[in-house]
Each structure stands twice: as structure tokens, then as C-alpha cells.
């Protein structure tokens, strides 16, 4: 019994961890280029609501929706929405050299507002009432692997998720390989550590920063899509995504800027997020202490990393700074 309960808990922790993993992988790529994108929470909201809008319009247009298009259209809509958000950030901070913190916070305000606005008003705008529930789209996203998911506890643990969950893990692994094993990754890290040096070495700093930020944004946006389509089954609740975007940024630190470490870290944080429900703590204050753990642990890691000053564990040296070639 306890064994099954633990399996159930781990699988629930993974479900909670997937949006965080998307967000963390996206933010790691972005930060490796020296851009501290605090707009990630906003981008994740937009990624979610864009998917909802795409799915809603398609379900409305097609009385008998095609399973493949049900997945493809929200996916493309979500990626487009996140890409536009990341582009706003890139143009402002890279081309116009604006302050990254201020731009990121403005982007989060904007993105969360946009998500909640459309989430709360989409049906009203089309003259309907009630709240958004895209049953067909949600079901398409939650499709499990046919045979493997029925293998008892083994199936529950490894094969009980929608395809986006596996995508998240694959993206994180690929990102890790690109960062550590390829020339592109090496160049990207050079841009994040010292853009002036990278520029002198002939690396196109602006191109790398743009690409890393935009690709990172799109990946993070998928986290929002996973949340609305898979976890909530195609339904939108205002502020339902909560502070998970910030938690994703915390994971970036906790995983010391390594995508591979982000995978277990996300599942761990996901587990902490729901731990209090599973172990049924008697008092509510104890539950709140558990909810505080992810942030506390992150602070400890941040301090420990900075105190040990091990080069490969430190944040990218130019994190948060704009680059202008002619500036001394």
C-alpha cells in the first residue's frame, strides 16, 4: 500500500514538475546568453492562454475536430505567443539596451494581465457565458501511450503522462548537450560570460542573445501550455498558474545553470509543492513551512555557490548587463 502511495506521489510530483522544467530550461538558455529574463512568469501565462485561444477557435470552427490538429493548432499558437513576448524583451534589452530587470518585470505584469484578461473575458467576447473548458483539446493532450500506460505501477511511474511531459525532459537533455558539447553552446556561454571578449573573437553577440532569449521564451511558454492543456484538462482559472514562474527561476539557481540538473530539481520542487497534501500534516502552519522550503533551499544554494566561487557553478558573469560594443 505504502509502495503504491509513494509511486503515486512521485508521479504527481513529476506532473507538478513539468511546467517548472520547461520554465527552468528556457530560463537557463536565456541566462547563459547574459540575459536575466524576469519576464518568464509572464511568458508562461501567455504561452498558456495563447494555446487556449488557439484551441478554442479551432474547436469552435470544427464540429468534428481532428485529433492531430487539436494538438498542432494550440501548440503553434502557444509558441507564437511566447515568441512574441520574448521578442519584446529581446528588442528592448538587446537592441535598445534597456535595463533587464525593469523590462522583465514589465513583461511579467503585461503577460499575467494578458493571460487573466483573455482567460476571464474570452467567452464573454464571443457572447458565451461560463468558464473556458476545452474538453476535446485537453483529452488530446492527455493521450497516453496506449499499451505501456497499463503496466501497473511501472506504467504509472513512467508512461502515465501526456507527450508534452516527455518533450520537456528531452528538451532539457538536448539543451544540456548543446551547451556542453557543441561549438554553438561554447559560443553562447562565451557571450554570457564576457560579451566583449566573444565579440572580439568574432562571435555575433546580438544574434546569439536574440536566439537564446527567443528559443528560451518559447520553451518556457510550453510550460504554460502543459499546465492548461494537460494538468487542468483544457480549463483556465485566473491566476491558477500561481507563482510557478518564479519557482522556475528559483530552479535555475538550484540547478546551478545546468539543464540536466534541472530535471531532478524540477521534480523535487514539484514534489515539495504537493508534499503537504500527501503526508496530511495535521496543522496548516506546518503545511506553509513545507511550501516555504523550495525558496529557502534556493537561497542556501545561491549563497553556497557564491561563497565557494567555483567558476563553473557561478552565474554567467555578465548576467543582467546590456552590451554595447563601444562602451568601455
Amino acid at each position, binding site marked *: 500500500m505504502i509502495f503504491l502511495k509513494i509511486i503515486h506521489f512521485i508521479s504527481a510530483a513529476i506532473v507538478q514538475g513539468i511546467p517548472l522544467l520547461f520554465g527552468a530550461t528556457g530560463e537557463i538558455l536565456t541566462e547563459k546568453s547574459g540575459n536575466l529574463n524576469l519576464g518568464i512568469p509572464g511568458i508562461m501565462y501567455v504561452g498558456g492562454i495563447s494555446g487556449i485561444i488557439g484551441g478554442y477557435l479551432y474547436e469552435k470552427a470544427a464540429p468534428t475536430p481532428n485529433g492531430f490538429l487539436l494538438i498542432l493548432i494550440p501548440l503553434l499558437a502557444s509558441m507564437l505567443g511566447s515568441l512574441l513576448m520574448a521578442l519584446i524583451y529581446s528588442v*528592448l534589452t538587446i537592441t535598445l539596451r534597456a535595463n533587464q530587470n525593469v*523590462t522583465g518585470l*514589465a513583461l511579467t*505584469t503585461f503577460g499575467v494581465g494578458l493571460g487573466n484578461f483573455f482567460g476571464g473575458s474570452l467567452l464573454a467576447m464571443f457572447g458565451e457565458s461560463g468558464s473556458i473548458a476545452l474538453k476535446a483539446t485537453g483529452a488530446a493532450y492527455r493521450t497516453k501511450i496506449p499499451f505501456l500506460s497499463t503496466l501497473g505501477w511501472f506504467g504509472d511511474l513512467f508512461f502515465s503522462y501526456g507527450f508534452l511531459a516527455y518533450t520537456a525532459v528531452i528538451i532539457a537533455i538536448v539543451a544540456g548537450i548543446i551547451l556542453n558539447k557543441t561549438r554553438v553552446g561554447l559560443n553562447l556561454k562565451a557571450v554570457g560570460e564576457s560579451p566583449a571578449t566573444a565579440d572580439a573573437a568574432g562571435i555575433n553577440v546580438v544574434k546569439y542573445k536574440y536566439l537564446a532569449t527567443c528559443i528560451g521564451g518559447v520553451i518556457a511558454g510550453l510550460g504554460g501550455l502543459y499546465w492548461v492543456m494537460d494538468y487542468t484538462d483544457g480549463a483556465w482559472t485566473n491566476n491558477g498558474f500561481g507563482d510557478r514562474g518564479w519557482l522556475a*527561476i528559483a530552479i535555475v539557481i538550484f540547478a546551478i545553470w545546468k539543464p540536466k540538473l534541472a530535471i531532478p530539481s524540477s521534480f523535487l520542487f514539484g514534489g515539495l509543492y504537493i508534499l503537504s497534501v500527501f503526508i496530511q500534516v495535521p496543522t496548516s502552519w506546518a503545511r*506553509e513551512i513545507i*511550501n516555504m522550503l523550495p525558496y*529557502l533551499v534556493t537561497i542556501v544554494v545561491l549563497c553556497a555557490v557564491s561563497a565557494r566561487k567555483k567558476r563553473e557553478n557561478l552565474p554567467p558573469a555578465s548576467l543582467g548587463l546590456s552590451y554595447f560594443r563601444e562602451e568601455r
Partner: protein
Amino acid sequence: MKKERKTREPLVHITKRATIPLWKAILVRVVAILIALVISAVVVVVFTHKNPVEVLRAMFNGNFGSARKVLFLLQRTAMLLCISLAVTPAFRMKFWNIGAEGQVLMGALAAAACMFYFGKTKMPNWLLLILMFAASLIFGMLWAIIPAIFKAAWNTNETLFTLMMNYVAMQIIQICVSIWAPNGSGVMGHINPTTYKGWLPDVFGQKYLINIIFVTILTGILFVYLTFSKHGYEISVVGESENTARYIGINVKKVILRTMAVSGLICGFAGFLLVAGENHTITKDLAGGMGFTAIMVSWLAKFNPLIMMGVSFLLSFLHLGGVQVAQDCRLNESIPEIITGIILFFIIGCEFFTRYKLNFRSAGKEEAK
């Protein structure tokens, strides 16, 4: 006699401006705000299907519709201004403290704790208020100084550190609320609702007015502190260049710690005003994201306390007006955040044109002739 140009000259060449005439700087910003307002108007009209004049009327109605609404607008402006003032000293030093939300909340929590525990005793109200005031300041300061210590000692990234501290503060409030709240309801409600212990008194029969007065005084003090005092000078030097500061004998670590302490003190004060003067309760949403908005206010005002008054008024006006528009049209109340976002993007973007100059290729050739 063909002289082929070997190097390819880019279409636009960017150079840094040494100075910019004041009228030009103002013009750039006014144009940016106008474009942003036009876009926002289009967005709102598309969403609401109402004509712009009607929307504008609803916005003014939401802010100036009644004496109570005007007072509420001023109160919101005052609180946003207070937190913006709080983050400013650190920002001038280029210390990116984005933990104002948490620092305000800790100040608020300290005030609420005093109200909760001493409200039942025979302590006179003036003493309780002083106690709350002191506790708020100390807690706000502590919350700000922890990241500063690590920054000074190990150069720990302060942006990420202060960001995490926000959520720790929110959870601490959740813990306290779950202990204090009656019958485990998880909601505090007004503290001392019958005895009014620890409530700031109404001035001239008006609620909130005392907050507005306090913040106005604080704005003056901080302007003087930053512009005319030796501390203010040291902050500016450290912000411009730590090496220069060290060279002229400023103790950089000391300045970092002291300035963050000042930031935290003011944040704590804001928390005190939120609890004692406005809400008389404690929740983790008490600051309502103003700690983050304040960062943008401070930056937009170029860290100048006097301009901040205008910026926080503008953002508060947009917020309350947007809520009114949304209510009138039965739409979600997130319209103000979208408008604020659009305006911020344009103001943030236009900064570039005040700092840098674009030299187009054709223009450059003519000059060469």
C-alpha cells in the same frame, strides 16, 4: 579613378550621446507616451467595442467620480510612491533590490503582530503605535540587510537573492495567519475591530489622509537625503563606479549595507502604513505586487523622488481607471495591467533614443562631403 569602398558601412551606426538638450529629452518621452496611449486606446476599444470617449469618461469616473474615489486614488498613489522611494537609494547604487515586496510584507507582519499581541493588553494606543512603527522598521530593515550582507561578503547575486526573499516572506505571513486566524479559517479579518487598537487615527475625519501626509513628508526628506547629503553623494559614486569610490576612500561595503538598511527601513514604514493606516489586517497579498511596480516607477522617474510622484500618480490613475472600464464592460479586471505594460514598454524603449544617437549611412556621406 574608381575608389571602391572595401568595408561595408552599416545602414545605421549607433553612437553614445554625451549630453542631450532637455527639450529633446522631454520630447522623446512625450512622443513615446503618446504613441503608447494611442496603442492602448486602440487595444481597449477593440476589446470593449466602445468608443474611446466613453472609455476615457469611464476612466475619469473611476478616479474622480466621488470624493471617496479621489481619496482612494491619492492613497494608492501615496503607497506606491512610498515603496518606490524605498527602492530608490539602492537602485542609485546599482544594487538591484527587487525584494521590496517581501520587505514591505515583513514590515506589515511586524505591525500586525504587535496589534495582535498587545491589542488585548492595557497598553495605551499611542505607545502601541510607536511600538508597531519601530517593529515594522526593524523587520523591513532586517529583510533588506540579509542579502546586502551576502553581497558585501561574497558578491552573491542580489537580484536573485532578494527575489527569493519575497516568497519566504509571503510564506512566513501564511504561517502566522494560520496560527492567528480564528478557528483555523485562514483569514485574519480586521485586527481589533472593536477597540481600534493600533489603527492610525483619521485626520480631519478622513481615512487614509494620514498616510498621504506621511508619504509627502517622506518624499521631501528622501529628496534632500539623496541630493544634498554626503550619504547621497557616496551612493551615487558607488553606483557609477565602485573602483572610483574605493579610490577616493569610500568604504564600498559599508555604503552597500547602510543604503540597503535605509531601503529596508522605508519598506518597513510602507508596511506599517499599509497595516495601521489602510487595511488593519495582514494577508500575503497585502502589498498586491506594488513592490514590483515600485521598481518600474523608480526606474522610469530616473531615481528622482519628485518625478516619482507623477509616475506613481499616472500608474495609479491607469489602474483604477482600467478597473472601472472593465467593470462597466463586464470584462476581466486585468485591463490596467495590459495598458500599464504597453506604456512601460514604450517608456523603457524610448530611453535608448535619449542615450544614443542613430547615424544613418546617407546622412553620414553628406556630412563627409
